[in-house]
């Protein structure tokens, strides 16, 4: 696979590889063009902490109301509106905590890392606005363990912000006081699940908690009401606080306003992280648009793409014209997830590609739920032998049966005209506490459903030996 051909050098900013600017509205990446975008000096020179100052001039409830009005959809994967999430905390139970989910590890995804590395003060300001609006007394900013540079940049920014009086006791001379504590992990995908994140923050093995309670907002860190928000979600708040909900809602569509960051990787001419307009931008725009990826490498045919991170069921060229709008992508059989598209061109070996994700989820299962722990490993083993040419036709059915034990019933998949398939809408039913189990099955199920012939061509038919009579019965 020679991926280097046809890949233009597009990173104007040597310090932020991956990010591609463009002439579009920028809410969270507006400072990425500056080489010193991560410093307090640059932040202050570009309107920094103005959103916090403005918010502190309003009662907390009004700030909360404004965020609710703006429908800031959670950018971690589930897409739950931030303002509504904050409102789920039980009345008069104190203290409440904010846990920032910077444990970004969904395959294909990275935007939180860039936001932490390139504009840490924006994130800090977002955390402060959230704490003020929702009455949260302490903030824990959890960064993925492997992200050394993000940890360094955020630590340095926190130190600067403390010194300048933006964090800590009596912020800007007001009665608003909150600490932001930098916390860092040590490598575990499942910790991105919010209750596992809380377990990890309590110093335990990062295993998701049993549900109910469904939301940590009711019972989270140390048993207290806890808001868990994604980095990108919080990074939207400073802009929102300054410009207001109406300006925010004017970008994108009614149900998916604002912008969102999307990483497009794999077989495209110009892979990169783009801040796109939510709701209206289509997958075709992103993959083929001149201002985005500019087409498939070597002008090859597109075979399939993962629309929302490794956990999402796959799409084929049939779904290219869908917009970045959850209400359309869900019924079409997948999800927008964490804003990550992985593109496979016509040269892709589909079973081998599916195996990279199946292996990922088998490796990342925390082991708490049997269907995921055992099922994920089974899927990996069976698929490995199929990919290696050692499988039988019975293995294909076996994988579907193992998957059905993790996700009973029809598993979501995209429609396909050539195969005469109708879409099965997202989401799935599941026998596990968290999404890691279903995610282990999703890529394989899509691959098997949409590209079954590629699997069939590499398995051997199981030979059935006819039963011969040993002797006459009578």
């Amino acid at each position, binding site marked *: 696979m020679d*991926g280097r051909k046809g890949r233009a050098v597009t990173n104007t900013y040597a310090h932020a590889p991956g990010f591609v600017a463009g002439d579009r509205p920028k809410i969270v990446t507006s400072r990425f063009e500056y080489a010193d975008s991560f410093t307090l000096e640059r932040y202050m020179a570009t309107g920094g902490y103005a959103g916090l100052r403005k918010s502190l001039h*309003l009662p907390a409830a009004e700030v909360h109301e404004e965020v609710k009005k703006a429908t800031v959809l959670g950018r971690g994967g589930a897409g739950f509106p931030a303002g509504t999430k904050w409102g789920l905390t039980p009345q008069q139970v104190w203290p409440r905590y904010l846990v920032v989910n910077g444990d970004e590890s969904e395959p294909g995804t990275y935007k939180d*890392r860039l936001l932490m590395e390139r504009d840490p003060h924006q994130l800090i300001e977002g955390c402060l606005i959230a704490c003020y609006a929702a*009455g949260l007394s302490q903030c824990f900013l959890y960064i993925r363990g492997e992200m050394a540079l993000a940890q360094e940049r955020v630590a340095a920014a926190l130190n600067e912000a403390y010194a300048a009086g933006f964090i*800590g006791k009596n912020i800007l001379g007001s009665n608003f006081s909150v600490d932001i504590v930098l916390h860092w992990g*040590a490598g575990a995908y499942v910790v991105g699940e919010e209750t596992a994140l809380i377990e990890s923050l309590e110093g335990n093995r990062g295993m998701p908690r049993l549900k109910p309670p469904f939301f940590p907002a009711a019972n989270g860190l140390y048993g207290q009401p806890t808001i868990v928000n994604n980095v990108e979600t919080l990074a939207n708040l400073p802009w929102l606080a300054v410009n207001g909900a109406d300006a925010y809602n004017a970008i994108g569509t009614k149900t998916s306003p604002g912008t969102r960051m999307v990483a497009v990787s794999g077989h495209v001419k110009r892979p990169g992280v783009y801040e796109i307009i939510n709701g209206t931008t289509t997958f075709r725009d992103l993959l083929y648009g001149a201002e985005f990826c500019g087409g498939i490498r070597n002008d090859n045919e597109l075979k399939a793409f993962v629309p929302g991170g490794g956990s999402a069921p796959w799409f084929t060229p049939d779904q290219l014209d869908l917009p970045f709008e959850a209400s359309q992508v869900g019924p079409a059989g997948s999800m927008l997830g964490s804003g990550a598209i992985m593109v496979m061109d016509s040269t892709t070996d589909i079973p*081998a*590609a599916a195996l990279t994700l199946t292996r990922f989820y088998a*490796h990342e299962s925390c082991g708490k739920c049997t269907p995921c722990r055992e099922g994920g490993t089974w899927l990996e083993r069976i698929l490995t032998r199929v990919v290696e040419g050692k499988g039988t036709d019975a293995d294909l059915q076996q994988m579907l049966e193992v998957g059905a034990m993790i996700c009973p019933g029809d598993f979501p998949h995209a429609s396909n005209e050539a195969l005469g398939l109708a879409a099965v809408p997202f989401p799935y039913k599941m026998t596990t506490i968290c999404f890691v189990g279903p995610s282990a099955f999703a890529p394989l199920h899509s691959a098997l459903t949409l590209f079954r012939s590629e699997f069939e061509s590499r398995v051997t038919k199981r030979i059935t030996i006819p039963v011969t009579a040993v002797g006459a019965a009578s």
Partner: protein
Amino acid sequence: MSRLNDANVATAKEIIARYPRQKSALIPLLHLAQEQNGYITRESMVHLGELVGVTSAEVYGTASFYEMFRFEPVGKYLINMCGTMSCALMGAQELMHHAEHVLGVKPGGTTQDGMFTLAHAECQAACTEAPTLQVNYRYRFRVTPADFDTLIDDLRSGKLDNEIPPHGTVATVRQRIPADKGVGAVAPEDVVEGPAWMDGKAAL
């Protein structure tokens, strides 16, 4: 011998004080121990248990869950080769074969001179820059076999000593909360009413 030294005990106490429950500091403290010794030793787990008030078995219980903690010495440089989908689509497998050949070890193995440990890694959140690798958690993007060879030469010759610390150190910048500015840990048992700014009035 491999308990935390005095300077690290002071850092550990500073970290512990930020949390309402001491055990919350465990993962950062394990990193501190790994930074000091290059891996997590039994003695350091006993020491961390004493510092946060849990048994060493509980410390091990937590530590063993996480990928980054090593319980045996590894090379000075841990080379994590990403092999998840985007990297695989862009030639990660071929790069891994090349790395095995150059270093003469299989994934999981350490070179005889103790310089390099080669490892499989899962998604490193740099998917558009595939194939990627991390050396002691410092990225290298769009790595070609020739890039890999240069990297190994530079690491051996000490050319990258300033950029890449030996295995164990992740971030080289620490958060410091000034004593006069910090609010301190907010523990559930210490708080009965809502914070001051939730009084219905603007804070400023």
